[in-house]
């Protein structure tokens, strides 16, 4: 099973600032292991972020997003104490959903 994401969601002014780290190989499919065998591609293809049941960001990724991906964005209308939920899905059908409570200003 995939590891949990590290999510930080903070109010900055009236916006929610979201920073996420995801544990994922993001293998390109172009590399070889020590024995010379191709390492199959394994990467996150879809990311979606919801708040209050509404999508606040959705993304499609290719193999060139860095290993252990980082994502930072901002949305309006969020409130401290409420939850942001993030889901990723990779090319092997593996999926992970995590949530974080929005922290107050700072």
């Amino acid at each position, binding site marked *: *099973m995939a*590891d*949990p994401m*590290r999510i930080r969601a903070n109010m900055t002014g009236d916006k929610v600032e979201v*920073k996420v*780290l995801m*544990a994922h*190989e*993001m*293998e390109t499919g*172009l*590399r*070889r*292991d*020590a*024995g010379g065998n191709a*390492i199959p591609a394994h990467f996150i293809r879809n990311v979606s972020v919801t708040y209050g049941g509404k999508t606040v960001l959705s993304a499609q990724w290719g193999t060139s997003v*860095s*290993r*252990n991906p*980082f994502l*930072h964005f901002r949305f309006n209308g969020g409130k401290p104490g409420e939850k942001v939920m993030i889901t990723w899905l990779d090319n092997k059908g593996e999926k992970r959903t995590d949530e974080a409570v929005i922290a107050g200003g700072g």
Partner: protein
Amino acid sequence: MRIDRVLAGVLAATLPCLSPAQQDTQKEIERYRQMLQESNPAELYEARGEELWKTRRGPRNASLERCDLGLGPGVVKGAYVRLPRYFADTGRVQDLESRLGTCMVTLQGFTPEEAGRKPFSGTGAPMITTDPFSGVGQRSVMTDLVAWIASESRGMTIAPSVSHPKERLAYQAGERLFYYRAGPYDFGCVTCHGEEGKRIRLQNLPKMTNAKDAQRAFGTWPGYRVSEGELRSMQWRMWECVRQMRFPELEFASDASIALITYLAKQAEGGTFDAPAIKR
């Protein structure tokens, strides 16, 4: 990694002839390093390590929560900055990784071979390399534990112990090894780390006999290395330097590796520990 290197090599030969002044290059590299600080994937390893410390594993189905890292059973806070040190139960000077190996044997019932030579996989995923570090498609329990335990010393002062005769011997042997030149390239640690303000390619080299450099170097390992997409420990740092020195393989948690780390820790005494860091 090999492919990335090849691509980079091809590129290097075809760089456009804009040649901005070298200071600009250095300044931009600094800016790049600064931008990386915004987020450090080492956190992912630290989180796993904290879980693993509490997880029952091995033939004895035990956790590591009673492991003595030098400050008493189960004390993790501040343990890293006091290592390496002499442990009476093993009669050896040990660094963190060596000591964790001991605890995996005594508490969890792993064989020394399992504890020290191979990374364990919490998920049972297949391992591609046999090196005692995490790599492509494999997790290293050792590395994850190191990440968390090191993070529990963040902000503390580096204060290794050198009061026991064996600690002093390790320090002095480490110093000798630092100056030991051998192999087809005539390299020793001192070749790259004996002078101030030098670089390999664009990477700055710490002079290990200079306290400020040593403090910064020792204080930022373990580190998440973006070039490999992996968290790397101090044992790995020694292993990898020695490989690039064209020496035979430095054995994981061996006396020579611990002597070198003891020497470096002592050189860095008084510095502030700020790891796991994020590095090239």
